[in-house]
């Protein structure tokens, strides 16, 4: 048997190999597109950390991504693929906008309105997640397909609201609803144009809660039991579907919060692509960190940096900004394949001894 230390060492080794291999593949793709790979990587890095403003943009996109990832860690733990998270973010944004529209002309304190709006967003995300959960537990509809369908429905609902009941006075447009009054924006840090410290605190508290929940509570242990083997968990007295529903609901709360942040702190209005793909990206981050909470924050930060860093690519190098997605996808794919190769390698070593 390979010792624990050997196992750990091989894990790190295979991870590094996977990352290098991913860089190699992306470089080949860049060469295919007639681009010098290093200039593209340099442009991405400079685009992410080249100035304070860019770095704060990275943090702005880190918050919803980390919130989505945090929620997904719970559904992954219980063995569920919550692809419907995109729709849950959208519904969070819709509920938040709804609450703010209802209250924006009232005499209430703007901070109170913001708090209510954020809770409304969490509720919206939770309800949409529980709908996918109910389809799964009571209707037998696989959560992947139920969730995907609900994503499309959420998008349609969002667009209908933007072009219909909530349209700008005069003409409806893809640029979204009328922006909210500045008093209803999440407070922005002094000296910055977009950074909102409150939301960063939310994201950090969120991932800490998930970490403690999974690693230090009986509830987390039960979620893990259901995820590892629902049948035996059930026989040992852990009610399966209740735990699945609970993880859906909590994940929906996180997704709804991400949507609320998008409305109150980033766009200050509802736009057609309000979820910005953070749900799908969160799934990738969760896969990359092996569904463990401890690495989620730094990896999400890295992914956010790639996204922000690639925005300038079309201007600087006339490259499509989807390069970020290519890099992220290749990275996750190579790490997954690396895990498989490593398992094979360890097994071979065991049989040789």
């Amino acid at each position: 048997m390979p010792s624990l230390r050997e196992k750990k060492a091989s894990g790190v080794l295979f991870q590094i190999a996977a990352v290098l291999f991913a860089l190699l593949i992306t470089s080949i793709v860049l060469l295919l597109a007639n681009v010098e790979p290093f200039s593209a990587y340099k442009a991405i890095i400079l685009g992410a950390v080249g100035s304070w403003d860019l770095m704060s943009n990275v943090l702005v996109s880190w918050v919803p991504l980390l919130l989505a990832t945090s929620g997904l860690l719970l559904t992954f733990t219980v063995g569920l693929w919550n692809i419907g998270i995109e729709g849950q973010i959208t519904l969070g944004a819709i509920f938040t906008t709804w609450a703010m529209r209802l209250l924006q002309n009232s005499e209430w304190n703007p901070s109170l309105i913001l708090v209510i709006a954020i809770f409304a967003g969490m509720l919206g995300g939770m309800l949409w997640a529980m709908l996918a959960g109910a389809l799964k537990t009571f209707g037998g509809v696989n959560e992947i397909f139920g969730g995907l369908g609900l994503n499309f429905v959420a998008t349609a609902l969002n667009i209908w609201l933007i072009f219909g009941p909530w349209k700008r006075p005069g003409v409806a447009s893809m640029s979204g609803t009328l922006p909210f009054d500045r008093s209803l924006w999440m407070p922005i840090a002094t000296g910055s144009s977009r950074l909102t410290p409150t939301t960063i605190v939310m994201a950090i508290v969120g991932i800490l809660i998930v970490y403690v929940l999974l690693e230090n509570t009986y509830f987390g242990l039960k979620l893990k039991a259901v995820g590892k083997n629902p049948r035996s968990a059930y026989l040992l007295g852990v009610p399966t579907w209740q735990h699945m529903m609970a993880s859906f609901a909590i994940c929906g709360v996180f997704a709804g919060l991400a949507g609320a942040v998008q409305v109150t702190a980033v766009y200050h209005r509802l736009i057609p692509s309000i979820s910005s793909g953070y749900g799908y990206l969160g799934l990738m981050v969760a896969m990359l960190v092996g569904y463990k909470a401890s690495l989620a924050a730094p990896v999400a930060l890295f992914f956010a940096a790639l996204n922000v860093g690639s925005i300038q690519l079309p201007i600087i190098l006339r490259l499509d900004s989807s390069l970020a997605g290519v890099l992220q996808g290749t990275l996750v794919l190579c790490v997954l394949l690396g895990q498989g190769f490593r398992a094979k390698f360890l097994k071979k070593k065991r049989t040789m001894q």
Partner: protein
Amino acid sequence: MNDSAILISIGGVLASAAPIIFAVIGETISERAGVLNLSMNGLILICAMGSFAVALATDSSILGFLTGAAIGALVSLIVAFASLTLLQSQVAVGFVLAMLCKDLSYFLGSPIMGKVAPRISQVPIPLLERIPILGPIFFRQDMMTYLSFVLIVLAWFFIFKTKPGLILRGIGERPAAAYIRGANVTRLQYLYAVAGGAIAGLAGPIYSLSIKAGWKGTISGLDGIGWIVLSITIFGGWKPFRAAFGAYLFSFLQWLGLVLQPSLPSIPSQVLQVAPFPLMILTLLFVNIGNAEWVERSLARLPENVRRDIAKVLRALNATPPAALGEPFRKE
């Protein structure tokens, strides 16, 4: 709308269902062998982009179609290798590939956006096209639409009427039993996953070289179709005819959305375009609900004659996936 316009529209529905049929049949064959290919959404996009690029460079639509099949086979080979050989989750690898291939097609395809490549045209079948009603619907189509009709029948015949088809069903349902009878399960799973991927890959060029000719990047309108394909595969209960019915139903609903648009000006077109999706969820619900435990329990409480009728309806709607779907076969 006059009569001939209606007939042409029905013909158009059949043509716009052709790529979905290729993709659904490909996925059905792969899933019958136990390999869930979740990458479909990215696969269709990258096959559409790649085949358009090749057709543009070589001025040959045939080479374009071959490229589509080759890319589809390659993507599916990665899924098969990751799951069958490396024992990684099919869902995880498929999802990552769905995302990766999508971005890859946008990235590599951006220089050829909006260019004009050869496209295949309609080939009316002499004599048959003059048959009233049926002619304009069935016999004034392009080559790939005719092939989509053939593919449905061929796939049904292969799966249910031939010996290899019997073995195919066996490796998806009870791989251990198929293995004992001498089938090389893993090799066959590779074969069907890759073949299914090649068939599904043809959906890409059918879009980019025919019904949505060209490559327009993010506004190509192809993003999302792969996910629909996966739902229709379930709706189809892994049976070619039922799957084809699902594909035609979906195309019809999308066409209906377009037709109804002018009479419902208050609803934005984007909303009507997604109308088939909630219907898809509902159908998935009906297709699956017979499998849920609480339905069985509450049915048991009903009087015998009522119970039998409801059970019959549920069974007719029901679709049970291949038992070994998503599980790589291990000999030990």
